[in-house]
Structures are given as C-alpha cells and as structure tokens.
C-alpha cells in the first residue's frame, strides 16, 4: 500500500488499484482473462503459468525482491529457545507450513541444509520434525498460532513476522548459509492499455527507494 501512496503522489492523475491474493489465485484469474496492468508473483512457477497463458511476455519479467525464513516464538518463549539449534531439543511443540505450500517446502529445504552443512548435527532435521505438532495449510495460520502461544516455535517468511508488532512475537534470524531465498517476480501484463504506467510502477518498485520500502516490510531488497 506504501507503493500506491508513493506512486499516486507522483502521478496525481492515476488511481492505483491493488488486488491482494495468493500468487496461485491471481495467476489463475489472469489466465482466465481477468483485467490488470501488472502482476507480481511470490514465486517463479505462478509467473510461468501466466506466461504460458500469454498474459505476460517472458522477457519482460524481472526479479524484484527476495524473502527468507525466520524462526518465530511466542513473546513469553515457553520452549526457552535461543537459537535455531534449540529446535532439536526434545518435547518442543513446533508448527510448520505444509509442504504443499511454498513456505512449507522452503522450511524442509532449510532444515535439510542445516543438517548437511550448517554445523548442526546430521539428525537435526529429523529431530526437529519429531517436534512438529502441525503442518498448517498456509503461512498465516503458523503465524497466528504462534501469536496465540499455542506452540513453542514456527517457521515463516521474514515479511510475515515483520508485519507484527515487536512485543507480540520473538523473531530469531536464520543464518544465511542455511537459509533459503524466495524469489519474487514482477511483469507488465501484455496488451494492457496502461503499459507505460505499469512500467513506471515497476521502475519505482525496483528503484533504490522502492527496495528500501520493501526492506521496511521485512523483505530483502536486491542490491543493484
């Protein structure tokens, strides 16, 4: 929404309308012919779907921001967790997203990397998974259940954790060597009547200023 404000201040005659939903849902809508001027996707797969349905031209796609995983804990830290390594302690209650959603697949990938070369024990992943009490069907459910204190720890995107006020949640960073990189893509819709405006919007998002805004929201801006 910050982008809408900034963009409209610079283009007073433009009213930006943003439709927020899961990338998969929006890609589906675009493929079915929904109108729009640009599409931002939280993964490459959904951008590919839109390219395949000829709504976006492949060479107009750019990567615009990254996201990573963080470990979140309820504010009172009932599991007494201080580092990622503590997740393998017995008798913890951990919530992950299910593997059917991207963040769940990333969580498994990160834990596997930690076990293989992150300086953690080789059974780290299996010990952590033994503590999992639920595989949620979306990342917001993981966040909410940790906010409610229903479990001791969860893995979510940094941008999800950044949206919560600091007092309600403890956030522990995961070292870059084992963390994953979720890549986000943006592209103008092919044949849109507002193509130039869409390109201006994309320039704003990719500019140093735009990347700064994304950093504020917990994303990892691209160094250019």
């Amino acid at each position, binding site marked *: 929404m910050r982008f809408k404000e900034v963009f409209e201040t610079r283009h007073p005659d433009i009213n930006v309308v943003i439709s927020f939903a899961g990338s998969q849902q929006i890609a589906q809508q675009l493929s079915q012919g929904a109108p729009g001027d640009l599409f931002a996707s939280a993964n490459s797969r959904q951008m590919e779907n839109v390219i395949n349905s000829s709504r976006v031209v492949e060479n107009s796609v750019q990567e615009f921001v990254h996201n990573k995983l963080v470990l979140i804990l309820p504010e009172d830290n009932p599991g007494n967790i201080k580092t990622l390594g503590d997740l393998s302690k017995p008798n913890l*209650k951990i*919530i992950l997203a*299910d*593997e*059917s*959603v991207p963040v769940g697949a990333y969580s498994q990938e990160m834990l596997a990397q930690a076990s293989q070369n992150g300086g953690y024990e080789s059974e780290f992943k299996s010990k952590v998974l033994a503590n*999992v*009490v*639920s*595989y*949620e*069907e979306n990342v917001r*459910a993981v966040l909410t*259940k940790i906010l*409610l*204190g*229903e*479990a001791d720890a969860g893995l979510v995107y940094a941008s999800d954790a950044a949206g919560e006020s600091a007092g309600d949640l403890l956030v522990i960073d995961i070292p870059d060597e084992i963390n994953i990189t979720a890549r986000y893509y943006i592209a103008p819709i092919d044949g849109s009547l507002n193509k130039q405006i869409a390109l201006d919007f994309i320039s704003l998002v990719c500019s140093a200023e735009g990347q700064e805004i994304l950093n504020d929201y917990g994303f990892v801006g691209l160094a250019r």
Partner: protein
Amino acid sequence: MLSLPMLFFLSLPILALFLRISPAGLLENLYQPEVLQAIGLSLGTTLISTLIIILAGTPLAYAHARKQFRYSRLVDTLIDLPLVLPPAVAGVALLMAFGRKGIFGAFLSNFEIDIAFTPIAVVIVQVFVAAPFYIKSAALGFSNIDQELEQSAALDGASSPQIFRFLTIPLSWSALLAGSAMSWARALGEFGATIIFAGNFPGRTQTMPLAIYIGFELDLDIALTLSVILILLSFLALFIAKYVLNRDWMSS
C-alpha cells in the same frame, strides 16, 4: 418434471467424482499409508465422539423434551447454535477455550495436559459441531412419547431408571439411532474447525477431510480416493437414518 433439474444438479458433482477415478485406481490408492491413516483416524475419532454425544447428549435431550429448563427457548437456541456457526468460528472458539492459552486449556496446562494438536482435540471439535443433530433428534423422539405412559409406569412402581430403560428408550430408539447416524456423518465430514483447533498432522489429527484438502494440492488421486470413501460412508449413514425413521413411522 420440474423436480428433475434440481435432483440432477445435486447428483451431478457426486457422479462426476465417481467417474473421475477407476475402481482399480481406487483400490490401489486405498493401500497408501496416508490414506489408511486418515481413514483409521476418522473412524476412530468419530466413533468416540459419537459415543460421547450419545452419553452426554441423551440426558440433555430428555430434560429439554420434558421442558425441565426454565429458559427452554434459550437452551434450544444454544443447542442449535453450532449448526449455523461457520466452522472457522467454532475452531477459534474452541482454541480460546481449550487451547494452551485458553480459559480451560491454561488450567489443564498446569498439569502438563495439552489438548490442541492431539486426537483429543479432533474429538472435541466433532462433539461440538455434531452433537446438535443427535440432541435435536433425540429430544423430538422423547417428546413424541405419551407422558401418561411414563406416569402410569411410575404409578405401578417402576423407578425412573427402569422407566427410561424399558419404556422411553424402546419407544424412541429410532429417533436416537437416526440422530446418532446424523451426528456421526457430520463428525466424519468436519474440516474447518479441526484444522484450526487440532491442526494437521498425518496419523494424529489429519482426518479424511483434511487429507483431502492437502491431497488436492499434493496428490489429486489421494484426494479423489478419500472423497469417494467419505461419500459412501456419509450416504450409508444418512440412508440408515432415513430407513430406520421411515420404518418406524409406517409401523406406528
């Protein structure tokens, strides 16, 4: 003839589901561990929740049918409420009550008892959403019994438990059975409150509806197989309920 479009509309999706998967494919998927786990968990938890509903729901239904409550309408409304609540509301409400930080759950946590994310949570959800079906049916059955029968039995020296056991239950058993079948079918199909309150863990809290939802994104064949089984079981339960009730009406 005007009745046919709606009947066709109601049957078409069911038919489409059955046509989508071959009997051979169905049998093959049936033996996948996640399918068997989900079926086992669903049957186990719904059996327990239906028993709890019958044991705890019968006294409430009886008291309600005999108008023993001062605020009968209020009680009736409370009983009906879970029927109209969105499952998400039921899930959040149960979390607030029985979750680790919930009113009652926090108390249990003192004794190292955690309910959320366990099969017990699955049963609690099922009891909450499915009990009204049994209670309403049972109350209707009880209220259809001529009270003079019970009174004359009492005059002849029968005790209250005797009257209930040998008169009330035999006279209303079809309503009780039909209500049980309805509750069981509802418990079997419960999804929204379960995923919120009990979470999703294969073999522990992932019942058939949850496995279908997750399977829809991961493995469509598993979702189809479980859907077909769920439909067959639900159809059977509803059919039994209707058959029993119908036979009872014809004989009376």
